[in-house]
């Protein structure tokens, strides 16, 4: 864990105070995630073919294309709540992705939406709490622990980094960047692991040596956040 002493980082702390995550920024994040999922669809599917059933990229792409349709339908109301938006995304994923990823990502966004509530913009601290609630929801749904070789291996370190960043007053861009970096490290750390959840677990030792596709899509989600949320615009 990267610890930043609050008292010695007053500049960043001040910078963080004025920054908020707006609904349009969240929309930009979702569009950016849809774009990288479409771009890396084959990669996700190939990772899944090695230790699963070769459909992760296809399913996530179908889901995020459905989310793009939903975003167009919802439009960009000036006073729309971030929570309602995230819940709509969660319901869309639940009903369009299928497989394990549908309930897991769907639950993540639904719980994140509940935590975000009615606010039309969120501070970094509120955002970190919402992400933490979403990840806790996905973890409860899938009953996975750290090192089971799942998306949780990327998500939990990312949440910890995000919370630490918020607590120590980092800027939005820096906190989201560290969160994405933690997710990347968590994702890469899945390579040597033996899977204990999902279809990869059927392989036992043979699952070691492959990067987990769910952890990979989770890293894409958080790296899209690091790129799109501070900018508030698409890729």
């Amino acid at each position, binding site marked *: 864990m990267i610890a930043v002493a609050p008292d010695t980082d007053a500049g960043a702390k001040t910078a963080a105070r004025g920054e908020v995550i707006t609904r349009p920024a969240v929309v930009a994040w979702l569009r950016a995630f849809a774009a990288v999922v479409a771009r890396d669809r084959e990669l996700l599917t190939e990772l899944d073919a090695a230790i699963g*059933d070769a459909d992760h990229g296809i399913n996530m792409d179908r889901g995020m294309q459905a989310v793009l349709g939903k975003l167009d339908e919802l439009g960009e109301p000036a006073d729309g709540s971030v929570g309602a938006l995230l819940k709509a995304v969660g319901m869309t994923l639940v009903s369009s992705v*299928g*497989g394990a990823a549908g309930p897991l990502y769907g639950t993540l966004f639904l719980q994140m939406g509940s935590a975000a509530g009615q606010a039309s913009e969120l501070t970094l601290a509120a955002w970190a709490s919402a992400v933490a609630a979403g990840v806790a929801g996905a973890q409860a749904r899938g009953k996975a622990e750290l090192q089971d070789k799942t998306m949780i291996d990327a998500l939990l370190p990312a949440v910890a980094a995000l919370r630490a960043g918020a607590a120590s007053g980092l800027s939005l861009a820096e906190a989201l960047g560290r969160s994405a970096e933690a997710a990347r490290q968590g994702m890469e750390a899945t390579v040597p692991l033996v*899977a204990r959840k999902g279809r990869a677990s059927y392989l036992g030792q*043979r699952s070691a040596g492959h990067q987990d596709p769910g952890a990979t899509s989770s890293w894409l989600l958080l790296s899209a956040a690091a790129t799109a949320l501070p900018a508030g615009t698409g890729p």
Partner: protein
Amino acid sequence: MKKLINRPQDVVQDALAGVAAAHGDRLKVHTAPDYIVRADAPLRGKVAIVSGGGSGHEPLHGGFVGRGMLDAACPGQIFTSPTPDQVLAATRAVDGGAGVLLIVKNYTGDVMNFEMAADLARDEGIVVESVVIDDDVALQDGRHTAGRRGVGATVLAEKICGAAAERRRPLAEVAELCRKVNAGARSMGVALTSCTVPMVGKPTLELGPDEIEFGVGIHGEPGRERRPAASAHDIVAALATAIVDDLPFGRGDRVLAFVNGLGGTPLLELYVVYNELHTLLASRGIVIARNLVGSYMTALDMAGCSITLLRLDDELAALWDAPVVTTGLRWGA
């Protein structure tokens, strides 16, 4: 990839349209959300049975919708669990007031999607029971994995529970029967070739020309081990031994023996397999009291087979023999 398809992403929808065109007199095919329901549903006072799973295993599950078996089936995308809204819509459509049994194969996605659907249905006041089938002995250590996969026993459970529901047995009893079938059944499969998922366009499993995947799953997921190709005699001996030793089945047991083709294997070879199984079980004093031979739970175009043994008693045998009228299984009526 050579397949009789149009656009890969349309395979499931095109096939569902075909089912509707072919069997519209007996089945109703709903789209968005997708589910297949028997035309006379809901039946007042009868427990309804809903199953489903990824497409690519036909005739499972849609081919088993009809009198004496399923009330509804929810087809997902190929090898992808159906979504909760599909299962919820199907559950609503077939609930005749006596409750709904969801038969779920033990795969992470299926279990989570059906769980979410069951929660939503209960919120609406529908009485729902859920039974998870996990009969695949290929996985020896269930504690550190997602658990054993649901395979051949699913077909047997759907038939037997369907017959019990048709006899107006209450939900708790039908669910208990389902658990009894699952507890008394064991399965294992072998792949001679991989399947090819249309959207992927290339084989899921890299099997050499002289290799077989022993303990393969019905999605082409690797199994227990890669082995050199062998005779039907040797393959059946290995599969049957793993199955018999697991329950274990013993001398004097009466069983239902189910030899299932995985989609790319001719019936001729399945009967070669059945003959080997029959001889082997006889030598161990296990009596095949009922059998089912054919391709009922497939993995797209995979060549290979699975064997399922179910320990029978008089109750299970009678329910197995009861009339069934579906596009995939039909007798006694």
